[in-house]
């Protein structure tokens, strides 16, 4: 992974409001990134595996995954990613509106790398995105370059 090429982030989210908000907040940040968006679980896996229309897609460095997406929900996407040797190393941040214990435990059982409840407040949301940038995109050594 080159320090100059932008970080590839896949956002799996069917709510355009959330997509735009994430995009806006990321835009205000310091890290150069490319935000790729898919609206359902089937598309997400296809994108990650560069299947069909996504044959030219780049390898993703980070996945922001909403649990409640159509066709295949986030849990299934997570399960398939973690069962797939080619995808399991990609860090998955579950970013969802649920704060139910069942969802949180379920996600970690499926080896989610972290679980974040979408804050209602913009300042809070901004802080979350900054923290993701700070931690996952600058501190953490991602596996992408090695693969």
């Amino acid at each position, binding site marked *: 992974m080159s320090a100059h090429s932008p970080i590839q982030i896949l956002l799996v989210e069917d*709510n355009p*409001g959330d997509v735009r*908000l994430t995009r*806006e907040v990321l835009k205000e940040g310091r890290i150069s990134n490319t935000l790729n968006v898919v609206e359902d679980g089937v598309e997400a896996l296809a994108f990650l595996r560069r299947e069909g229309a996504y044959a030219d897609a780049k390898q993703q460095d980070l996945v922001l995954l909403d649990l409640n997406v159509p066709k295949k929900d986030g849990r299934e996407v997570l399960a398939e990613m973690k069962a797939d040797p080619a995808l399991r190393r990609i860090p998955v941040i579950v970013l969802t*509106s649920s704060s139910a214990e069942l969802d949180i435990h379920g996600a970690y059982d499926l080896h989610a790398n972290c679980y974040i409840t979408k804050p*209602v*407040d*913009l300042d809070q949301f901004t802080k979350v995105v900054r923290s993701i940038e700070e931690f996952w995109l600058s501190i953490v050594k991602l596996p992408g370059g090695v693969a």
Partner: protein
Amino acid sequence: MDPTRKLLVVEDNPSDLRQIIEMLHDSGSNMTVESVETQAAAIDRLAVADVDVMLLDLGLPDSQGLETFVRLRDAAPGVAVIVFTGSSDVEVAVRAVREGAQDFLVKDRVNGELLTQAIAYAIERKHAEQALRESEARFRTLAESSPLAIFVNREDKVVLANPAAAKLFGASSPDQLIGRSALDLFDPASRSLVRERIRVDSEEVPLVEVRIVRLDGTPVDVEATASPFLDQGVKAIQILLRDITERKAADEALRESETRFRTLAESSPLAIFVNRDDKVFLANPACVQLFGASSPDQLIGRSALDLFDPASRSLVRERIRVDSEEVPLVEVRIVRLDGTPVDVEATASPFLDQGVKAIQILLRDITERKAADEALRESTEDLLRSNTELEKFAYVASHDLQEPLRMVTNYTQLLQRRYQGKLGSDADEFIAYAVDGAARMRTLINELLAYSRVGTQGAPFVLTALDGLLDDVLQGLEVTLSEAGAVVTRDPLPEVWCDPTQIARVFQNLIANATKFHGTDPPKIHVGARLEGEEWVFSVKDNGIGIDPAYFDRIFVIFQRLHSRAEYEGTGMGLAICQRVVERHGGRVWVESKLGAGSTFHFTLPAELEE
């Protein structure tokens, strides 16, 4: 004559003495004879009480006439006396007999046979007199000490009365009764009965109950009996009276109590029957009705066991036994005469019925109660189900509302962040309202979520030191408290079993309210705790604006607010949540307050609640 009898001859004339001894000898008497010549010697000799009879010459050297007899009679009251006198003194001798001498003999007209006969008769007479006197004394003692009132009536006048009679009539002594008309002693209402039954010419009078009148006029119920007798040739009647006031009261009490019990049994809604020798012996109307009989006769004589449903019989046989103690309540099933079963609650008490072991069985029809229990159980289940559904609904609703809310909040805030001051003052104001509205809705939804989660998402109870918990709550409220200038004081708090997150929320809500609803003075808040019986009573007291008692119930209802948003912020959910939390812990919450005089919120938690 009995040789052991001893005769003392008191005679100073030697020839008279010789004559007596010869007469006795001639008549074949072998009794012991002694003689003395003076009264003084006689008294000395009589001091040894072995003399049976005395032959007494009234003219002695140291005493003359009747006086001689009187002195010696008194010196030896048990000795028979025959006065031995000359023919000129017969009159004195007769007086001596009147004074107690048994006989007299005239010296010149006596012979041996007459003398021995006189001696024998005198001894016998003396014995008879003595026996009579003793018997009289015994009877007198008996009458004097008798608890029965006794009086003797002669010619309709009281001639004798014992102390018990005096006491019965309230007289200070029997003398107060003597001379009164006996009939007057009885109550006017009893007089005809007395006149008819207690008569000198009647036979022994059987017991009659009459009423007497005491001297002070108060009536007393007595039981009377009487025996007519001849008193010195005059027909008299001895009347015995016994005060039966107490017995009558006891009889009355017993009768009343019997009547009460009978009435109780007759009017009891409980079916009662008595079982003896496994046969129904008695049944009250409620029992007749319970079994669908038309009269007790339809039940009496039946086997009691047959009255129960076959499925209940082993229980009945085991529990309802004549040799058991009091039987605790058992639920069994009886069978009515028409065959329909009825659920009853039965209890029984064994007792002795005229010496026979019997058992009294009480049955209560519990058909309605069982139906009511069932209905209650069903409606409780319904309520529980609808409560659960409501909670689920509230949870889902508030959860699903989060999504659109997030959009509204985030984008209005994004608008504010990027375009504040760029679109004109109207736009700034509109955006500010939108941001504020979204923030309020967020609070509301969070509270609704919290409210719905009290029941469904409560944590298990753990033993919690409330002092530390309150420390945390106060720390969380630090900014709020210091902005309001609030002073919080507190009692030492105990450890209780609770869901600490929920109880912290209760303290937080109550303290936040106490801070929020303050008047012109800065808030002064006291957190109290005291043990009352089996529970802790906690209180949060403030000096704030107070609450009109008319609203006491309303403030605990979800979404109910007493103030406009401009006056005091709030969702109207805080106290509703407090109430749900406290109720989940088995406690109660209430408020004491007056408008303008501060409020005290109380809630209880069980002192010993294991999880």
